[in-house]
């Protein structure tokens, strides 16, 4: 109740003030700009190929109505037919030869009606072309691409968390010569544009024989300066006395890291995990370079391969786009509260 009162609060006491109109107009515009394309994409992914090329375009997916006719195989398309007696009826077509089509009334299948093409119009109805999605599963090696994407995302995220937290632990909790220099170096790499390290990275991966291997995508992504920075700032807030207490408790340095520092860094780790999942799942350029055989394609690469030089199968492309968007959307929807929490407490303002 309180939340509702808050959300519907206006500046004007009894009727809307002009600022209310303005802010609502702005919000509606924003909503339209942000969600319009997403809505359009989702709707379009349920259209048949024919419906996609239709002009003028419609928001909702429509398809031609079909019915079963006794004595005929499969479903037959329904047309609005103008009969010789001037009446208009919806009848399924059973065959079409040249300019003439043969229709039949399903109730009286023995009385075919011959109609000229210009005397009829297809009947459209709201229809989801779910075959866009179901075909994907069989037609393309969708399962394989999904597995590749999942494997890269999960393994790279786990390794990112492990290696970045180890670096952050050393940089935040150990006093050694050159600690600040190392940290500045790590932060400094943030300023190097990724495009510049693309070629050197490729050479390294190629020499290591990791081309066309999922590990070739995973390893270069594991060390992220952002992750080290985020985790280090968070770990600085863990009191040193806790570590001293653990040392008195016979804990080895590894055990201190694993049993004390890691659990206490959970909020920052959650943030980094979300980032890493998004980065790896949406990654396109680097996998495109490393993976050239279709058995290793990620979803993003498979998506790209739908767009051929001559023919683009838009219905499949759109359906697949929706599928690739889903995981990140879900991750974000469920974990976004940790992002704000973690970022706020990591001292990154």
């Amino acid at each position, binding site marked *: 109740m309180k939340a509702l009162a808050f959300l519907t609060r206006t500046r004007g006491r009894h009727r809307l003030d002009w600022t209310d109109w303005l802010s609502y107009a702005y919000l509606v515009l924003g909503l339209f700009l942000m969600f319009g394309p997403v809505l359009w994409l989702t709707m379009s992914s349920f259209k048949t190929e024919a419906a996609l090329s239709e002009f003028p375009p419609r928001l909702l997916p429509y398809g031609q109505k079909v019915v079963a006719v006794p004595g005929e195989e499969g479903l037959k398309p329904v047309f609005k037919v103008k009969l010789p007696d001037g009446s208009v009826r919806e009848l399924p077509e059973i065959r079409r030869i040249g300019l003439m089509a043969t229709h039949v009334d399903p109730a009286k299948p023995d009385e075919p009606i011959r109609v000229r093409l210009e005397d009829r119009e297809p009947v459209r109805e709201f229809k989801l072309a779910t075959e866009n999605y179901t075909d994907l599963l069989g037609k393309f090696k969708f399962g394989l691409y999904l597995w590749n994407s999942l494997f890269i995302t999960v393994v790279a995220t786990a390794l990112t968390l492990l290696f970045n937290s180890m670096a952050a632990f050393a940089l935040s909790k150990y006093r050694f010569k050159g600690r600040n220099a190392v940290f500045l170096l790590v932060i400094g790499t943030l300023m190097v544009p990724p495009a510049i390290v693309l070629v050197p990275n490729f050479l390294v991966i190629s020499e290591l024989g990791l081309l066309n291997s999922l590990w070739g995508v995973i390893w270069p992504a594991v060390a992220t300066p952002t992750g080290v920075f985020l985790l280090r700032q968070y770990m600085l807030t863990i*009191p040193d*006395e806790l570590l001293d*207490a*653990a040392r*008195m408790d*016979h*804990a080895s340095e590894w055990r201190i890291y694993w049993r*004390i520092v890691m659990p*206490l860094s959970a909020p920052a780790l959650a943030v980094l995990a979300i980032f890493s999942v998004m980065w790896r799942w949406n990654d396109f350029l680097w996998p495109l370079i490393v993976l050239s055989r279709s058995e290793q394609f990620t979803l993003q690469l498979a998506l790209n391969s739908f767009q051929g030089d001559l023919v683009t199968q838009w219905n499949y492309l759109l359906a697949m786009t929706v599928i690739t968007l889903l995981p990140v959307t879900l991750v974000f929807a469920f974990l976004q509260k940790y992002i704000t929490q973690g970022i706020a407490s990591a001292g990154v303002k």
Partner: protein
Amino acid sequence: MASLSLKQVVKDFGPTRVIHGVDLTVDKGEFTVFVGPSGCGKSTLLRLICGLEDASSGDIEIDGQRVNHLRAADRELAMVFQSYALYPHMTVFQNMAFGLENIGMARAEIERRVNDAAALLRLDTLLQRRPTQLSGGQRQRVAIGRAIVREPKIFLFDEPLSNLDAELRVSMRGEITSLHRRLSATMIYVTHDQVEAMTMADKIVVLRAGRIEQVGSPLHLYNHPANRFVAGFIGSPQMNFIDAQAGDAGTVALPFGGSLTVPHRASTGQAVVLGVRPEHLSLQAAPGALALPLEVSQVEQLGGLSLIYGQLPQGAGRVTVQVAGQVGVQLGERLTVFAQPATCHVFAADEAGLALSA
């Protein structure tokens, strides 16, 4: 239970020397308190003993064995930290069991020890709680329990009561001393609070700027302070210091006239400081007593006792007088307070302020 001895222990942090050659012996089963103002090096000394810091030079011996090269864990000591340092993501049980798990102790033995310690500290019903769900005093007891289950040679306490409110501090003070009696363990306790030091210690070590000023039993320090710093630090309210001059034949002359006979070792004419505790000043005149004329500047009535603050004539300083019961003294009133010569201390007026009472 073990003894500890420090021999010429020195600690440098870079170019700064924080511990200047400390020599100290702690006997088996003794309750030793390190006391001193903030930054005097008492916590550093404790961290040197437990091995969280390495001594720059000197020897640290436990039961006669040199332990400088041993890691903190292998010295078989247990420490209670100022912030308690409880692991926030573990339950009370896990907090207490963590150190035992790390040395690979059998599960049954761990449970026995934790349950024993919990019973001793009245934590039995709280074992499955997390530290954030506990009150300050309970957290304190968990921290002590974590030390007990280890059955250490020496217990180290680093200002364990400073985060508690005054009332809880008094009761925890009693609990720690009774724990000491029951376990008859060697304990070293760091505090900046001289009341804690006086009430708990078998032996007090007064530290200043990385040096030991005096070691002794609480009453010895109170009755025979080695220098002006110890005299001022032990006892509350603080001892009054009055600049004076030594006369011959054991007399001390005050700048505003008057003198008294206190046996001392100062040479004639030497500048000295006369020290007298507020509780040794009295409003009743007595033969041979030191008489101090005061102009009352403030009166604090505590009911059971009263504190009178007054200025000496000729700007010779401020004096605090503690008298039993309630007084009818008014602000600005002039009165004279008296002190028996036997309760007066004589210190050198130089930096070191060594005691010169004979």
